[in-house]
């Protein structure tokens, strides 16, 4: 079932170029920074990221938000949820591969069974029968696989139209496009590009729809939307990288609320 062969010459060439680019990016990624302890937010690309954020915010305000708003008004919630589940189901083969790469065969097996159940019994993932059977989502990705092997974030990036990421995570995203063993890779290769574009647009609208209010708040009601988006992305990714923290690690993570103001008496 899993095949990485491309039969169309143009696709083969495009894939070779993409793979070459990703290989260079990965080499840079591994040599630039490995296993940095990232406890604070360092943003060396701020001067580039800020203008990109302004562009992205405009794109959201004038295109993505109205499209998503229309999608939410026209498509009933249950159907939207079903679409989201199908897209999640399509991502599961790569999720399983990443669990293997992270030396977590149990999670890989559970994810594979989840994929099989939701595909066969859940009609291609429209229905999530696996969660009800005790196989909930266990999301992971190539960025987290790189982190598993000690690759640091390197730098925070806000990419045009793609939004927040890091150099490491973008390397993972780029590589997944090349190697994703999802069913879309195996349809008529001459239509693969259109398929990918369509899937990408649907995923973007679905993701924006699932987090509609929270993204609106981050972008339009926060004190500084660039910082709000950046911090939210990085804090969430760092928690994913660290996995389930024990209590001592959770306490260590807490910033000291009182240290700087111990001499003040108007705390309440």
């Amino acid at each position: 079932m899993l095949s990485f062969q491309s039969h169309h010459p143009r696709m083969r060439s495009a894939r070779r170029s993409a793979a070459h680019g990703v290989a260079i990016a990965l080499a840079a990624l591994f040599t630039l920074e490995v296993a940095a302890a990232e406890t604070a937010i360092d943003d060396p690309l701020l001067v580039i990221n800020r203008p990109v954020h302004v562009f992205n915010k405009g794109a959201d305000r004038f295109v993505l938000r109205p499209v998503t708003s229309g999608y939410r008004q026209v498509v009933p919630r249950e159907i939207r949820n079903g679409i989201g589940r199908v897209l999640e189901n399509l991502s599961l083969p790569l999720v399983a591969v990443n669990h293997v790469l992270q030396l977590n065969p149990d999670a890989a097996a559970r994810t594979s069974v989840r994929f099989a159940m939701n595909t066969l019994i859940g009609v291609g993932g429209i229905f999530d029968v696996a969660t009800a059977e005790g196989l909930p989502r266990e999301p992971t990705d190539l960025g987290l696989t790189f982190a598993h092997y000690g690759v640091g974030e390197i730098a925070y990036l806000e990419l045009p139209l793609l939004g927040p990421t890091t150099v490491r995570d973008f390397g993972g995203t780029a590589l997944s496009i090349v190697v994703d063993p999802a069913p879309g890779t195996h349809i008529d290769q001459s239509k693969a590009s259109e398929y990918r574009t369509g899937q990408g647009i649907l995923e973007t609208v679905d993701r924006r729809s699932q987090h509609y209010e929270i993204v609106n708040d981050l972008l339009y009601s926060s004190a500084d939307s660039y910082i709000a988006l950046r911090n939210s992305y990085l804090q969430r990714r760092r928690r994913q990288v660290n996995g389930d923290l024990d209590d001592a690690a959770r306490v260590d993570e807490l910033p000291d609320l009182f240290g700087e103001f111990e001499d003040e008496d108007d705390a309440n």
Partner: protein
Amino acid sequence: MQTSTKPCTLGFGARPPKARGWRGLAIASLLFGALVISAPAPAADADAAGEYIRAAGERFVELAKAAPDDADARTALVRNFLTEHAALNVIARFTAARTWREMDQDQRVRYRDAIHSLAARFFAGRVTEVANTEFEVIRSIDAGRKGFLVITRIQAENGQPTEVEWRVADVDGELRIADFVVEGISVLVNYRDEVRSLLEQNSGDIEAVIAHLNSQAGL
């Protein structure tokens, strides 16, 4: 700030003096009452913090269920909830960081109100999502001088469960919520960094920051 898991017994453990008749009893009662009133509040423990969050969370879900459709009315409702349950001064000081020391009292009050309004608007937007959730306290952790951390699970209707951490501070013997962390994202840390960035953009002018916060809060 020191925390303790040992309940304070001052007042409650005092033995009433012997007294004759009603007069003696009245004097003893007054002395006992005075001792109880003047005793410091018992130091909270992790269980108390967990119970506090359970009660506050359930109250918020109840408020959300009965929340009005009007956005301003919802924001006012959440603002009152935060007045009652949030450690507003602690939050204001932490987010302003060193600038807090440079503010005069009037600026501190206006800055705290601006943060309060911004948070009220943010959580008012979450009210409809909260209305159909089930809320469960998993465990609470005594974090020593850092206060308490209460781990909860929120189960949305037809959704995956989400783990939410609540940072609880013991402020002069009263438990108050100081932070809210979902999937590792801390509202408090976000506010601190946003305020820091605004201060940098405005050459440290706290008045400009307060004006910006008020404008984002829709004031």
